[in-house]
């Protein structure tokens, strides 16, 4: 099945989830991810799987918690204001080690903001987002193909680490249409020896995020922290373009990375030595590769559709010796290749 087909970004997330064996979807409408929910409402019931439009985003994430605890692959999708509402449930799932996939198709905030695409939830996604010490692997697709591929990967990683996993895309990407290659459905799902699936013939299992005993609770958190450390070691993903001789490295993800690619190509035609480092996981962040590039003396341009949130991760990775310039938009305004090219021109 290597046939190419046209697909919207949000639809590709839905289809990726279906291919990955998502058995239940719970969600509440919000622009710019409505077509994801709508698509699921048609596809899942027809396959005998569960679709439920809930009364709120809060209900959606808590239904995901309940359903995922039975061992079924589950997901919800939302956009920024709805994602804020789901933080409590996500924190509970991280604490209880229940896997799920959450797609956040980001729009402009804070508050109700507007429906334009944005990347202003970077901190919320990469720092846990809810209360307590936890992290979520956060995948940042930059094409419709990756919307599908990374959603499938998100289900694998969620089960591997028994942790909620995020697909974090901006609204522009969600609403765009591109050609993709359809993937094969996942044939077998991993066994879950922790799931609450009926205790007949075995000891009871308990899933919760609650530990009264102040001696036992730190132990439990330590196990979580070890898990996050393993993610940092094993799950870093990025794409590097033209980095070998790059004097300036653009760091960008999502649709901003697409603008950066155009700017980089234009710069190369003008004999500027420019490369692109595109984080595919923003948690764990590709710090080591940035640190190595910094050692070589590169300058950096961080291009993002927020006030400069990823900029902080780049600064932490690069240190204080190298020049870093932020090129950004916010408030639902797309980042253009012109803006990035101008920064390259000024820095060269």
């Amino acid at each position, binding site marked *: 099945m290597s046939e190419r087909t046209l697909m919207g970004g949000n639809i590709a997330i839905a289809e990726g989830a279906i291919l990955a064996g998502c058995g239940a979807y719970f969600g509440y409408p919000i622009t710019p991810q409505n077509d994801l929910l709508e698509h699921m409402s048609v596809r899942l019931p027809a396959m005998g799987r569960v679709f439920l439009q809930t009364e709120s985003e809060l209900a959606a994430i808590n239904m995901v918690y309940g359903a995922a605890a039975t061992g079924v692959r589950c997901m919800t999708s939302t956009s920024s204001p709805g994602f804020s509402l789901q933080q409590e449930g996500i924190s509970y799932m991280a604490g209880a080690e229940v896997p799920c996939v959450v797609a956040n198709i980001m729009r402009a905030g804070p508050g109700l903001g*507007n429906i334009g695409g944005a990347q202003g939830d970077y901190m919320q996604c990469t720092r846990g987002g809810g209360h307590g010490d936890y992290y979520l692997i956060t995948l940042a697709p930059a094409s419709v193909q990756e919307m599908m591929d990374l959603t499938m990967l998100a289900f694998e990683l969620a089960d591997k680490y028994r942790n909620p996993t995020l697909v974090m895309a901006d609204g522009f*990407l969600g609403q*765009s*249409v*591109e*050609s993709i290659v359809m993937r094969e459905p996942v044939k077998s799902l991993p066994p879950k020896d922790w799931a609450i699936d009926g205790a007949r013939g075995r000891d009871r299992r308990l899933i919760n995020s609650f530990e009264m005993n102040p001696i036992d609770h730190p132990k439990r958190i330590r196990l979580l922290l070890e898990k996050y450390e393993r993610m940092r070691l094993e799950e870093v993903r990025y794409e590097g373009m033209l980095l070998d001789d790059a004097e300036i490295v653009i760091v960008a993800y999502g649709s901003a990375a*697409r603008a950066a*690619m155009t700017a980089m190509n234009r710069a190369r035609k003008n004999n500027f030595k420019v490369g692109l480092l595109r984080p595919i996981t923003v948690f764990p962040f590709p710090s080591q590769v940035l640190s190595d590039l910094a050692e070589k003396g590169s300058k950096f341009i961080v291009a993002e559709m927020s006030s400069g949130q990823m900029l902080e991760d780049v600064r932490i990775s690069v240190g204080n010796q190298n020049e870093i310039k932020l090129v950004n938009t916010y408030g639902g305004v797309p980042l253009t*290749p*012109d803006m990035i090219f101008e920064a390259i021109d000024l820095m060269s």
Partner: protein
Amino acid sequence: MNWEITISGFGGQGVLFIGRLLMEAGFASGQQVSWLPYYSGEKRGGMCSCFVNISEERIGSIFISHPDIAVAMNPAAYAMLEPDVKPDGLLIVNESLVKEKSQRPDLKAVYVPTVELAKEVGDESVANIIALGAVLARAPVVTTSSVIRVLNQMMSKNKPQLELNKAALLKGCELS
């Protein structure tokens, strides 16, 4: 070749639809494509744009700031697009609503009375398809036959609508 196309107008004028037709025809011709709708909260009557890339290479930005081809379906779209079209680019202007004329000598500006021509073929609702025809007549971005094939697929269950759209496309293509 990498074609960057921006189409703008009122929501309801079929701006997204003709962008979609271009993308589908480009895809059917084996090209890399992207299509991005861009509008605010309101739809009908509000400003609406769409950005289409049709390219032989991997596509970078899905947002386009300097199109090779621009279609301005209303005065606000004209004001927005006219300064941004690439030198030697093509600007199709919906003359039925836009009264201004471009002063840029480096631009191929074409003024098309889309609404009047659409009425001639049967219904003003296909003014957008007239504009698309005008694009195809002047830029080898995709072939007219490839767009007709897409229309055939999309409207196979509605023959009168299909015939109306085809007639409008050919009418737009006829303009010199």
